[in-house]
């Protein structure tokens, strides 16, 4: 029962469960703004029906995001106390800012969103939707800023006083705009838009295939596809920019992403493959020679530092990073292809009758979820063995006053409870989808008394 391993696994379990939900809040938030904006502009009650329907789903994902989110904020202190002591001066500030600016906005205005239909007018309600969307996006800003500082630390210095060595801020804005924060933020937000968009697309495809709520489904599909195609394409661009930063600041991570062992040779890309770490090579792959070097520098022959250039204890786990990176890219490219095809058909007015494409779109909500998780695995496992790149190793960052048995207990409890909550989430979501949009959602004020 290794304390470090258990703490790592617990953080992975808690953050991966959490990460199902905020991207949906961000993506659906954006889509709700678009839908309610259309309602205000056109007065068409169909848009209002869409808002009220998607709001039900939004409320569900939001509460699970909140419930699992508090865990994350506490977990830095409970399980990674040594890390917290080391970086508190630097890392604590964006976290506090996240609470002060983003969480207050989204959680407070959510009240009006969900419950304010009979208390405020349409413009005020739309303003609240906008605020919740903004709050959700703003929370991503601060947490990604903090996480990016862990990857590419800047605006700090290391200070030793007595028994304590820690990082302190020297320049707040340099910390915020550290080398990778903006590219990672854009890539993260766009991944979140995809998560929301493809959920809308999937549900719309479901109704179209079942030939139920067709007007509603067509309208939802249009908006979902609009956000879906744009975000899928932008994802590729921001992904490329992120990888450029990785090549500059975290060469060992880039080398692991593509299984590039060769100490100082041109970097290839593999369409897929299996990493043979003992023999320091990739097997069973289709190689695209020089492509990695080309993407990084424009020159396919440009030598890139390989994993052999790093001491074994300074390398991340290669297989995990390689596979998750490839999974993310394959899904990302697949989503570009799928949404392009769907958009093309939509432009020709042929989408809604094309059962084949609709059947492809039906399960597509899963794709951004998998890609988002795979992307985080790539970047976080790729950051190992560092918890703060180049400054503090993960194994030196755990809470030393916590017995391993306690972490085992909490890990088991989280796993069981989160599994149960996930089942419930899916159950309630399926029920909402089967119920479909309601006739009473076509009016602004809900006057009906209920049981």
């Amino acid at each position, binding site marked *: 029962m290794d304390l470090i391993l258990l703490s790592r696994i617990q953080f992975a379990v808690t953050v991966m469960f959490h990460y199902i939900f905020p991207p949906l809040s961000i993506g659906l938030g954006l889509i709700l703004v678009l839908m309610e904006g259309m309602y205000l502009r056109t007065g068409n009650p169909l848009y209002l029906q869409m808002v009220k329907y998607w709001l039900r789903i939004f409320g569900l994902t939001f509460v699970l995001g909140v419930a699992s989110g508090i865990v994350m904020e506490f977990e*830095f202190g409970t399980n990674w106390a040594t890390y917290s*002591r080391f970086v508190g001066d630097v890392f604590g500030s964006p976290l506090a*800012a996240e609470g002060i*600016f983003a*969480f207050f906005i989204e959680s407070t205005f959510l009240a009006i969103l969900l*419950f*304010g239909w009979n208390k405020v007018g349409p413009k005020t309600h739309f303003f609240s939707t906008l605020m919740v969307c903004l709050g959700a996006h703003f929370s991503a800003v601060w947490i990604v800023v903090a996480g990016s500082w862990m990857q590419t630390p800047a605006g700090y210095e290391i200070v030793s006083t007595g028994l304590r060595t820690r990082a302190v801020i020297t320049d707040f804005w340099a910390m915020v705009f550290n080398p990778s924060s903006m590219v990672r933020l854009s890539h993260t937000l766009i991944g979140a838009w995809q998560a929301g968009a493809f959920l809308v697309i999937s549900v719309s495809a479901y109704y179209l295939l079942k030939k139920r709520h067709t007007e509603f489904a067509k309208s939802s599909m249009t908006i979902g596809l609009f956000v879906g195609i744009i975000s899928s394409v932008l994802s590729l661009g921001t992904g490329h920019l992120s990888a450029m930063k990785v090549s500059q600041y975290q060469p060992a991570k880039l080398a692991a992403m593509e299984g590039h062992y060769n100490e100082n040779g041109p970097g290839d890309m593999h369409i897929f493959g299996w990493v043979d770490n003992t023999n320091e090579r990739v097997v069973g792959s289709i190689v695209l020679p020089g492509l990695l070097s080309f993407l990084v520098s424009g020159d396919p022959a440009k030598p890139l530092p390989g994993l052999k250039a790093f001491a074994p204890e300074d390398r991340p786990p290669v297989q995990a990073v390689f596979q998750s990176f490839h999974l993310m890219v394959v899904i990302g490219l697949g989503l570009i292809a799928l949404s392009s095809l769907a958009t093309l058909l939509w432009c020709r007015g042929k989408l809604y009758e094309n059962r084949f494409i609709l059947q492809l779109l039906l399960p597509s909500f899963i794709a951004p979820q998998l890609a988002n998780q795979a992307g985080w695995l790539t970047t976080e496992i790729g950051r190992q063995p560092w918890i703060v790149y180049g400054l503090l190793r993960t194994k030196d960052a755990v809470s030393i006053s*916590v017995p391993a048995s306690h972490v085992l207990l909490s890990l088991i409890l989280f796993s069981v409870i989160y599994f149960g909550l996930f089942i419930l989430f899916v159950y309630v979501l399926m029920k909402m989808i089967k119920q479909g949009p309601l006739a009473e959602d076509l009016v602004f004020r*809900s006057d009906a008394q209920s049981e």
Partner: protein
Amino acid sequence: MELDLNTVWFVIVLALLAGYAILDGFDLGVGAWHLFARKDEDRRVLLNSIGPVWDGNQVWLVTGGGALFAAFPEVYATVFSGFYLAFMVVLFALIFRAVSIKFRSKETWPAWRSFWDTAFCISSIVASIIFGVALGNIIRGIPLDDRFEYLGTFFDLLNPFSVLVGITTLALFMMHGALFLVLKTDGDLQQQARNWSRYGIIFFISSYTLTVISAFLFLPHIASRYMENPPALIFPGITFVLAFCVPYIFHRGKSGAAFVASCATILSTLLFFAVSMFPNIVNSSLDPLNSLNIYNSASTKKTLGTMLTIAIIGMPLALAYTVYVYRVFRGKIKLDSISY
């Protein structure tokens, strides 16, 4: 006592925690009373009384935790890791509280509703008690080494004084929650809430009195603080006055003012503890030199300054729209089709 950044941040963190206790205090209090309501419709009213606001109220805890991390990272690290299992229990309680509100009325079958009613109630009670136990331990003092690491066990945290503070916190929130319900309900349910308020008041005043007496009798650092500074006795004094104001005002039929008095009692209770501890935040029972105070646990002045700017911009905004939303949802609860 100079007004430096460290002191300012001690006050801000205290304010955030007080804000949390005043706001989520009534959410948790309502939850604690939940199973005492028998009818399905009454339970729905209870859920809807806090429905729009509980999430925003909980943000005060998240922000307080974040502020503690940013301003006094050594305290954050020591307390959160030292009280590991207790904090895990709190997290699970808060998770269950959140999802039970959302899930409870999604089905009509009695077993489903019963399950989530129980989860809502128990999680609210557990969270309240553990918050109090944590506070009690911080006041009482815990064994810390020279690296500020907690040396005790989970069961060390369940000492009599801290358990008493835990019970007092539950009592306070139940009183507070019941007074809130008197404002939000009418008819028979309101009459029930009035009864709950009476029980809550008695529960709180008796357990609080026990707590203060215990503090003076068994915690030498508290007793000596007030022995050396008799004027400081005004703080516990005010708390008692306010605590007795609550029933006095309540029995004169002014429910709104009683609720305000309850808010003031919460603030005053926390102030009393803060004044008893300042400038220490967490006392080490092993060696006073190992205690965490506002200087040895803090971030740099530069960071405290930057954070202060963030707080000065952000908190008034947050307060403004919080007040706005509370005003939108003022008045008695009427169940309609969008209610839980």
